[in-house]
């Protein structure tokens, strides 16, 4: 199947601000043509009438757990979950076992991913050795091995001097440093947002200030060093203003938000369900409204899932003892479609936040349907209803706050490099 004609869909290509019905012709792994009434000769035809055709989604924040914790996820299962969710490229965080703080680990991930994963995988390397926040990693060697950014995500670089030097040194390689912004002292033993709900539930709270203070610090350090700073999973409304001002000032600061922080509040913690425990925690309705508006306005650049698989038995414990994180690859599109349905963002802009924007931040392939670019394409049914049952999905883990929910917005097909890797009626299609 080297030639495929995707016919009659609403083509949304943010890279050229295109929004209109068209055919898309894929040939030899590349986009060959985009236009009305393309001739259907010598090609397989995929009817996309009523569906959207867009650049494959790009998720710059996932935890794929390989090497070391393959019982939670591996590059094969994570890659399959990705393409089932319409993602054609993923960046995977460095908190594996061993930590991706050495070029040998980066290369291992890339080699394994090339064999096992239907989605493209881009490793993010640790910013400090062992994620300890002390000694910076060999960024030049890691970059040469294929790392697209540096982050201690999952851990926090609490020493501002270390963060300063990481940022300074990163300018030598010119890729973003991604910060998990959380002041650990202020977070203390908090397991959910500190507020009325935590007071009611009697669970230790983690105040929004723990995030805001850390973001304020790192923006100052970005200004001081001229480095590129990408702020992971913004959850607090107050963080938005800090990011907006940094951008107005012309700093190289970008940010992402997760589907869960866009749609769920701390009220979701009320049942003590550990599938609602993540870091940063779910915040209040006011915070949700502010991060939604920030995404729509582009103050927050992109959607990233923070896909964090954990085994059922690891989550079936006390709320305070459960590991943080939820899965997200398979549900992300349907969940963020809520913003389109509420009229807060246009389909074209949502597609931009899901593909073109993250691709530009990290300088990776994808995010476009222009002719001669790699044919990473997703076809979605914006009105398609489906029930998400994690056990029927492709991730090895089930820790989703949307388990059993009926979701609207369905991925119909995913192409990576022109190859059909997922189709709704057949599942993941990998030769």
């Amino acid at each position: 199947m080297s030639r495929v004609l995707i016919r009659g869909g609403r083509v949304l290509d943010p890279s050229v601000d295109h929004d209109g019905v068209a055919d898309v012709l894929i040939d030899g792994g590349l986009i060959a043509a985009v236009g009305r009434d393309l001739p259907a000769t010598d090609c397989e035809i995929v009817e996309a009438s009523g569906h959207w055709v867009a650049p494959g989604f790009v998720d710059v924040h996932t935890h794929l757990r390989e090497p070391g914790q393959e019982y939670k996820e591996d590059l094969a299962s994570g890659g399959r979950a990705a393409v089932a969710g319409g993602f054609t490229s993923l960046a995977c965080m460095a908190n594996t076992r061993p930590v991706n703080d050495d070029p040998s680990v980066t290369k291992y991930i890339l080699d394994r991913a090339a064999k096992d994963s239907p989605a493209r995988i881009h490793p993010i390397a640790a910013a400090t050795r062992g994620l300890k926040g002390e000694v910076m990693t060999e960024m030049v060697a890691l970059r040469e091995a294929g790392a697209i950014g540096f982050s201690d995500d999952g851990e926090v670089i609490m020493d501002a001097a270390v963060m300063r030097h990481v940022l300074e040194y990163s300018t030598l390689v010119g890729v973003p440093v991604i910060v998990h912004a959380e002041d650990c002292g202020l977070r203390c033993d908090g397991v959910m947002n500190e507020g009325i709900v935590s007071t009611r539930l009697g669970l230790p709270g983690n105040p929004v200030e723990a995030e805001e203070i850390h973001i304020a610090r790192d923006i100052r350090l970005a200004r001081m060093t001229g480095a590129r700073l990408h702020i992971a999973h913004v959850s607090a409304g107050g963080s938005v203003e800090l990011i907006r001002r940094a951008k107005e000032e012309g700093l190289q600061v970008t940010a992402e938000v997760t589907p869960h922080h866009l749609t769920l509040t701390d009220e979701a913690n009320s049942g003590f369900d550990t599938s609602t425990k993540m870091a940063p925690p779910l915040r209040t309705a006011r915070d949700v409204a502010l991060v939604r508006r920030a995404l729509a306005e582009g103050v927050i650049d992109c959607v990233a899932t923070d896909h964090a698989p954990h085994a059922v038995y690891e989550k079936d414990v006390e709320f305070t003892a459960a590991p943080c994180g939820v899965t997200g690859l398979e549900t992300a599109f349907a969940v963020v479609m809520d913003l389109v349905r509420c009229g807060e963002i246009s389909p074209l802009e949502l597609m931009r936040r899901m593909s073109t924007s993250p691709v530009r931040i990290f300088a990776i392939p994808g995010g476009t349907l222009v002719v001669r670019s790699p044919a990473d394409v997703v076809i979605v049914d914006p009105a398609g209803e489906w029930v998400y049952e994690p056990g029927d999905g492709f991730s090895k883990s089930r820790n989703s706050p949307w388990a059993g929910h009926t979701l609207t917005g369905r991925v119909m097909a995913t192409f990576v490099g022109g190859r059909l890797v997922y189709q709704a009626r057949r599942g993941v299609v990998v030769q």
Partner: protein
Amino acid sequence: MIGQDLLGIEKLDREQIELILETAERMQEIGTRDVKKVPTLRGRTIVNLFFESSTRTQTSFEIAGKRLAADVVNFSTGASSLSKAESLLDTAKTLDAMDPDVVIVRHRVAGVPQRIADELKAPVINAGDGAHEHPTQALLDMLTVRQEKGRIEGLTVAIIGDIAHSRVARSNIYGFTKLGAEVRVAGPPTLLPVGIESLGVKAFTSLREVLDGADVVMALRIQLERLAGALFPSVREYSAVFGLDRAKLRFARPDAIVMHPGPVNRGVELSNELTDHRPSVILDQVRNGVALRMALLYLIAGRPSALHRE
């Protein structure tokens, strides 16, 4: 209430609370008999599943169950035996397979009784979970106040101390406000949780103000080892500012009663003298705890209406 869980006061309505209190008042007589046993729950199995040790609460439930002729089994498991090999819900499922009729759960983490109740067929009674709820303590406190004052509606209840970490405070706030009392809380600002007013109480940091016009004064236990130095400077300063003695009690109404969920840190929350003498009613609280728990076990595990249905 047959077959229902009792996880917190938040979810109860006024009628349910009053039914429990009235049933408890009828149970009190049994404790005064020579033979302190009735056959009401003969053949039922009650399991005390205590992940956090509490000799007082566990004993109170055990005596309550035995006075109703139930078989009471203590399944105590300290923090050490909560090993990684067996998850919390595994423990619950294992227990469920032994077909208990009621499971009483105590845990140091909020929400555990609810998670266990979600897994178990048997009804679950929360015997205290973290800083969340301690419904039986609040019910026995309400019972005690009703006996002392003849009513709860219209009273002013002042709760003093570590509100942030107290399940007793939360359950009592829900209970007393549902029954029409005005509830106030007071403590150092570091021990007042964010948004406590959203639970329908007034918050104070002055003992004098919180006590002004109070009919009921409830002091909470302070976890000295964990909090001193972190959330207040020292035990000495805490007891000087928030500890109760006869002199400070004069700010309250002349007929105010003093309560404490126990065990008291003598000389910290309450003066030694006030701990042992009226107007403190601490031992009445303990005594009422047995009757209250008998009432709950009867209402939840008794089966007269179930038999009628068959």
